[in-house]
C-alpha cells in the first residue's frame, strides 16, 4: 500500500515537474576553451559564400541594413550540453565536470517578412557586425566546442544538481533594404524595399555561458 502510494507520487512528480525548488548558483563553472576552428557551410567558408542573382522573391538582393541602436546578449542561446547528478540519496558531495567530446552544429535565427537566403544572411551579419570587434556569424560548426571542459562543480549530499552550458548569442533588430531582379524594369531591378528584421546570432568570438544548479527534492512537501 505504501509502496503503491510511493510510485503514484513519484510518477506524478515526474509528470507535473513542479516540485523542484531549483537554485541557480551565482558561481559560473570554470571554462577551458579549445583552439578555434573555421565555420564551413556546405564545405565553403562562410565569408566566401556567393550566390548568383536569380529572378524571384526567394532571392532578395541585399542593399543595406540599418541596425537599431543597442543589442542585447542572450546568455542561454544554444545549448552545448548538460550534466546532472542525482545525489539525493548520497551523503557526500559529488564532483561533476563536462568534457566536451562532441558538439552539434547550431544555427542563428532570422525573422522578418523576407526570404533569408544564405547570401542575405551573410550580408546582414557582415553589416550588423561592422561596428563590433570580431563580428557575428550564422553557424557554430559541428565540434566547435570539442575539447572544452566545465567544472568541476560539487553537488552537495542530499541534492540533485548539474551544470548546463550554452553558446551566448546576440539579439539584433533593424531595417533591411532589399531589391529583386525585375527583367521588365529598365534598371533590371525592382525598387528598394525596407523590411524590419530581427536576428539572434552567434558572435565570432567563442562566448560561452554556463550555470551550475542544485535542488532539494521536495517530493513529500
Amino acid at each position, binding site marked *: *500500500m505504501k509502496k*503503491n*502510494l510511493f510510485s*503514484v507520487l513519484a*510518477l*506524478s512528480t515526474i*509528470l*507535473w515537474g513542479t516540485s523542484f525548488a531549483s537554485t541557480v548558483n551565482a558561481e559560473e563553472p570554470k571554462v577551458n576553451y579549445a583552439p578555434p576552428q573555421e565555420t564551413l557551410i556546405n564545405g565553403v567558408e562562410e565569408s566566401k559564400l556567393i550566390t548568383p542573382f536569380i529572378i524571384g522573391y526567394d532571392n532578395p538582393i541585399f542593399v543595406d541594413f540599418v541596425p537599431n541602436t543597442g543589442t542585447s546578449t542572450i546568455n542561454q542561446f544554444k*545549448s*552545448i*550540453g*548538460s*550534466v*546532472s*547528478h*542525482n*545525489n*539525493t*540519496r*548520497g*551523503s557526500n558531495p*559529488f*564532483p*561533476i*565536470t*563536462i*568534457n*566536451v*567530446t*562532441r*558538439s*552539434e552544429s*547550431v544555427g542563428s535565427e532570422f525573422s522578418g517578412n523576407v526570404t533569408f537566403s544564405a547570401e542575405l544572411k551573410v550580408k546582414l551579419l557582415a553589416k550588423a557586425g561592422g561596428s563590433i570587434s570580431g563580428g557575428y556569424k550564422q553557424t557554430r560548426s559541428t565540434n566547435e566546442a570539442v575539447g572544452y571542459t566545465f567544472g568541476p562543480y560539487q553537488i552537495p549530499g542530499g541534492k540533485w544538481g*548539474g551544470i*548546463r552550458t550554452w553558446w551566448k548569442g546576440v539579439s539584433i533588430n533593424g531595417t533591411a533594404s532589399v531589391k529583386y531582379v525585375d527583367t521588365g524594369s529598365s534598371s533590371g531591378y525592382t525598387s528598394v524595399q525596407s523590411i524590419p528584421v530581427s536576428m539572434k546570432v552567434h558572435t565570432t568570438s567563442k562566448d560561452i555561458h554556463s550555470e551550475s544548479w542544485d535542488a532539494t527534492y521536495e517530493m513529500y512537501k
Partner: protein
Amino acid sequence: MSLRKKHLSWLILLTLLLLVLLLIRNEYLSSHTAEEDKPINKYNEFNSDVLMLKEKLSPEGFDKITTGESLNRSLTSFPDYQTLDIRNHDGVDNDSSRPSRYEIFYLSKDETILVRLNLIYAPEFTNTKIVSLQSFSPGRIEFVDTEYQNIVSISSTSYLISYKNGLAQVDFWTTNKFPSSEDDYFHLLNEGEEKFLPTLQDILLKISNEKK
C-alpha cells in the same frame, strides 16, 4: 621392439608439437577477438548507437521534448546503506564520465501521452527481443484487491526491449491532458504505441544488424 619404441617417441613428440601449435593458435585468436569485445569498445559502440538513435527517432505524431544536445548526461548516487553493488553511483565501472543510461522524452502532439525512452548500457545483450511488456491503469491493476484498484490516476505501459549492447525501456504514460470523458485508457495508449514503436523497432533492429 626398439623400432617400435622409436616410433612411439616420435609420435609423442609430434603430438606435443601439435598441441603447442594449437595453443599458440588459440592464444592468437582470442587476443584478436578480445580487441572487438573489449568493454570500452562496446561502450563506445553503445554511445554512438544512442547518438544515431536520438538523431533518427522522430515518430509521427510525437515531438522530442528533451532539451539540449547530444551530450546530456545524468548519473545517480546509490544510497549509502545499499550493499548490492560495490559502486556508489550508476556510472559504468563507477566512472562518472561514463553514464550507464540516456533518457529521452517524447510528447504526443495532442499532449495526452508522455514517452520516456531509457537506453541502458547492457553489454551482455546481442539480439533484439521484447523482454517484458506490462501495463497498469485505474481499475486495471492486476491481481490487486478491488478496494485498491482506483489508487492510481494515470495509465502506463512499459516495454523492456533488448538490443545489441543495451536495453531500451520505453514507458508510455497518460498525462494530465488526458480527456476526462475517456475511460478507455488503453485504447489511447495502444494508439500511441502503434505510432511510436515501429520507428524505434527499425532502428534497434538495425543496431543489432538484424535488418538493413
